């Protein structure tokens, strides 16, 4: 199972869970499996522009990229706003 680490607001929206395990072969499958998938991805299925996704420390926006069963996927909100 891949592990997904969520930042604060997404963790709150996931019922307080900061760490989730998901069954996924790709980055897209992992993000869509989240209870906050609609906040990470827009309505057309693309990663929102100010959401950053790191797989085992490497940043990616490729939803088709494969993830291993032991992958750690970290979601980070971009530095923005005020």
């Amino acid at each position: 199972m891949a592990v997904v680490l969520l930042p604060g607001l997404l963790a709150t929206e996931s019922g307080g869970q900061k760490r989730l395990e998901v069954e996924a072969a790709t980055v897209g499958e992992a993000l869509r499996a989240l209870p906050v998938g609609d906040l990470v991805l827009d309505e057309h299925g693309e990663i929102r522009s100010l959401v950053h996704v790191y797989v085992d420390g490497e940043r990616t926006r490729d939803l088709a990229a494969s993830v291993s069963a032991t992958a750690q996927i970290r979601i980070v909100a971009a530095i923005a706003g005020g």
Partner: protein
Amino acid sequence: MGVLLLVGTRKGLFLIRGDDERRSFEVEGPLLPGWEVKHAIADPRDGSLYACANSWVYGGTVQRSTDLGKTWTRSEGLGLPEDSELKLASTWHLEPGHESQPGTLWLGGEPGVLFRTDDSGASWQVNEALLGHATRDRWSPGAGGLITHSITLDRDDPQLLWIGISAAGVFRSEDGGGSWHPRNQGTEACFFPEDRFPELGQCVHKVLAHPGRPGRLWQQNHCGVYRSDDGGDSWAALHQNGLPSEFGFGLALDPADPDTAFVVPEEGAENRVTCDGRLGIYRTTDAGASWELIVAEEPAWAAVLREGMSFDEEAVYVGAQSGHLYALRHGEVVRATEHLPPILSVEAAALQ
């Protein structure tokens, strides 16, 4: 009866409870921390709270609470179809549906879109007639974006409603949203170099239908204050009757008197602060033939946004970007609270 004020701010939602006299207020919050709440309502039909909760990272959402804000559920699947080539940028305004349609609510958002739910926000359907409107390519975004910010219903006819879009103008539907028709005759687009009275393209800032007189609408516009007595077919300009400026955002009415309205004029489009260095609320009691000044604060810098005014049978409520909230009752102004984050919206509900 007391009042429950839902105050949306840049940093969450506050619930503010006022007593029968509107002299004492208690603040609860912030709720929905981390979210910018552009508008929130209490549905008078079942007491549920709904909030337009937005994030610059995670987009626009609607959140619903059935326990007065203790817990919230986010509507899922809110978005625009891929073939529209548009994406929902933010959620702006919630409006309970007609009292004969429990579970129905309307939602306005950016870019100039409208949604409807018939299951109390569990799912939302985009209004296709507005999404694919033949005039959409003539709409222009204002400073807040291309936003559907006003949704106002006829009290009697559930098929009759109006919306306001900046900057596209006022549109009316007589078939429950099945079709939309521009209703801007007489309202000026003062920012256009040539045709200043076009069919559409006006920058309406807020439009409200009076709940007690069918066909009477009030409008605060980028270029003036207007009234219509024929459901928007024609508009009369009222801002030359004693207002210091044609510019402003907020608008409030008196449900018991269709001739009474309240506005907060601002210096102008290039200097969006209240006129004369004070928070001046202007009231008409003669359908806009004249206006009188009621000063809430002097001197003060202030600015009141388009959702920053609300009203009930007892009072008018004004929330400012400075974080001050005022209640105006019988001509007397009470400072309800201060030190809130910048206030984006105020909505009054009966205290539960």
